[in-house]
């Protein structure tokens, strides 16, 4: 990569930090040695290692660079919201080194050309690695299969239909079968189109009071049940994106217990917000699937803690201000999440739901495993993608803190703990807090 960042690779020692590498069950004060873009050694220096650069991580945590399963960069097609340059830079500032773009760009990622564009542009800027989920159907229209083999060859980590679920179960069955032929993971957003009925809030007491069209729990559980049946039938490897209900988590846990090759994730907002947060028509809390009940939030937290949900993602959806300046139902759904992925995840450790290494696992080796990529670990030989953060640093999030161009976050004003100080991508320092602004 020929990054604009002047700090090139070479030999780097990161010393004095608590090294947490869940993939190798490492959690100890250990030095990390990096050479030529790769992890050279952990603990003891390799022979003849002469560090050209030292990073003092005393009191900090050193972990693999984060892997975000779902981040919309808005390029190509929606550059008025954000760009690959702006969002990969925000990712670096958030300790994220690998981002996965869903296929709902414009044009849709249904041809190798778009995959190539994403890769070339992200490599040119050099802040973060961008991988793509290709479209399951052409134009995400749910009618014709995309050229999945070509997409795989172009580098797609899987295929999916983004937030436009297939309504025709026969087409879905064939799409899953075709994907299975090429050993592609299918990324599914479980929401029944008809039951969702263009709703914009969880169907419950709050939506009833506010008169907002509701999305029932069954919109998700009915889709999960149908998808599980088709996954079993077709033998495809599948991943459920953004579960929002406790019941769906239990259904996935059951399927995993039964030996089905299914994984699942949720996004950080669903672990911290509930339907109550839309109670004053707060369009910043308009997300899809909708924020649900406290019981669902707790069920999702349990799913993340127990590993039923192996990944926690940002579900980053940056918007221009106008997208949220309208009456609630007319606003665009989504939260800008790259800047808050790590601190919001670390809150689960602070709240006692899980340990710090487990939190880091859901942000690194968990999602990397789902993508089938060799990242999210500090094993010797692995790409030196590293995140160094101060786990004690507390700050109140303001919009001025955000690196993403999307300022649409309901977490402004929240007291967050855990702040990234250094991010390395393939052995290059792509972010340091000290030189930030």
């Amino acid at each position, binding site marked *: 990569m020929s990054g604009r960042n002047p700090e090139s690779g070479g030999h780097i020692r990161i010393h004095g930090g608590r090294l947490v590498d869940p993939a190798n069950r490492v959690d100890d004060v250990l030095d990390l040695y990096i050479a030529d873009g790769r992890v050279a050694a952990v603990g003891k220096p390799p022979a003849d290692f002469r560090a050209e650069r030292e990073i003092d991580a005393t009191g900090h945590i050193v972990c693999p660079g984060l892997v975000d399963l779902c981040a919309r960069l808005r390029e190509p097609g929606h550059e008025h919201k954000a760009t690959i340059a702006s969002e990969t830079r925000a990712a670096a500032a958030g300790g994220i080194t690998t981002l996965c773009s869903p296929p709902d760009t414009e044009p849709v990622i249904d041809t190798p050309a778009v995959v190539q564009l994403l890769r070339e542009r992200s490599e040119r800027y050099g802040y973060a690695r961008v991988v793509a989920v290709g479209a399951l159907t052409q134009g995400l229209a749910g009618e014709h299969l995309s050229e999945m083999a070509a997409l795989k060859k172009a580098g797609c980590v899987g295929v999916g239909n983004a937030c436009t679920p297939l309504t025709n179960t026969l087409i879905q069955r064939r799409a899953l079968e075709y994907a299975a032929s090429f050993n592609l993971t299918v990324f599914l957003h479980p929401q029944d189109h008809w039951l969702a009925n263009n709703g914009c809030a969880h169907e419950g007491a709050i939506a009833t009071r506010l008169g907002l069209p509701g999305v029932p729990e069954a919109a998700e559980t009915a889709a999960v049940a149908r998808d599980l049946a088709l996954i079993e039938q077709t033998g495809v490897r599948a991943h459920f994106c953004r579960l929002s209900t406790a019941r769906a988590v239990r259904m996935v846990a059951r399927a995993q217990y039964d030996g089905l090759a299914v994984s699942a994730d949720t996004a950080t907002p669903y672990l911290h917000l509930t339907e109550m947060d839309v109670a004053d028509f707060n369009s910043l809390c308009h997300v899809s699937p909708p924020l649900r009940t406290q019981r669902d939030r707790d069920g999702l937290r349990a799913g993340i803690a127990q590993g039923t949900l192996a990944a926690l993602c940002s579900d980053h959806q940056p918007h221009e201000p106008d997208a949220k300046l309208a009456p609630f*139902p007319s606003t665009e759904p989504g939260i800008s999440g790259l800047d808050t992925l790590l601190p919001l995840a670390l809150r689960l450790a602070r709240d006692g739901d899980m340990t710090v290494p487990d939190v880091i696992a859901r942000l690194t080796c968990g999602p990397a495993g789902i993508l089938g990529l060799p990242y999210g670990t500090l094993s010797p030989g692995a790409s030196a993608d590293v995140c160094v953060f101060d786990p004690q640093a507390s700050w109140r999030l303001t919009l001025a803190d955000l690196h993403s161009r999307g300022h649409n976050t309901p977490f402004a004003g929240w007291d967050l703990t855990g702040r990234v100080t250094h991010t390395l991508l393939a052995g290059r320092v792509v972010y340091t807090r000290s030189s930030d602004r």
Partner: protein
Amino acid sequence: MSASNLQIDSRGRLRHFLSIEGLTRALLTDVLDTAESFAGVAEQSIKKVPLLRGRTIVNLFFEASTRTRTTFELAAKRLSADVLNININASSTVKGETLLDMLRNLEAMHCDMFVVRHSDSGAAHFMARHVAPHISVINAGDGRHSHPTQALLDMFTIRREKGADFGRLRVAIVGDIQHSRVARSQIHALNLLNTGQVHVVAPRTLVPAQAEQLGVKVFHNLTDGIRDADVVIMLRLQRERMQGALLPSEHEYFQLFGLTEERLAHAKPDAIVMHPGPINRGVEMDSQVADGPRSVILQQVTHGIAVRMAVMSMAMRQKAAPETEPETP
């Protein structure tokens, strides 16, 4: 809730009128009392009071309405205000012009009050949050959320017919609760006035999720729901509900939930029948009932003008006195 507090200023006075939720019983009673004082204006030879002379009120209707818009217009004119009617067919809204752009333009024309109807729930709150500080927003119906002046005129009508002690009343609301902003506002208003029992009556498809949490008892049988009721409020059934599998037919709806003289016999002998209009005769009620001695439907329309005069003058009264305390944001 902060959204509701938008409508009350730091001294507890009406600043906008957005929803019944967030009002105090004292303030609601104050509006009804003020409406009472305006009720006589229409009987004078000169049907005007000069309270809002020199003020400009904009009726901003993004949804079709005859009754509500007309009574707002009459109310404004009887208060001597200048009235501007803007009807915007939401689908033909000029592309690219956002709601906010439109507000800014109207502000630039030095208007004092927006009376807003919009198909999105929360639209009036959104506008109240974004208008210039000297402008009041009155909600004339937003999506399925709220239609607070309708609820007030209904309370006004009930109070005139049944007295101010709502505690001994049983009120039944019959029809499409799910899609009705009128029902939501009525339920909040009835509960704010401590109504003894509030019943809602409809098939499950027309009752919203967890409706009980609004403070009502749900019935799926008309005679059970209106038994011994003092007030029976019938809601308008939109014809489009036959699509989307909410109901099988108007015929079956009328068979089960239509109000007839025989069914009304289950309510108290002196029960009154209300309807926010316009009525689908033969769908939600018989003409016999609609035009019968217990119907107060036309009184509701008349009262609508007095209630809207009260709301508009109270929201403007706040502007007349200079603000000394800082506003809550």
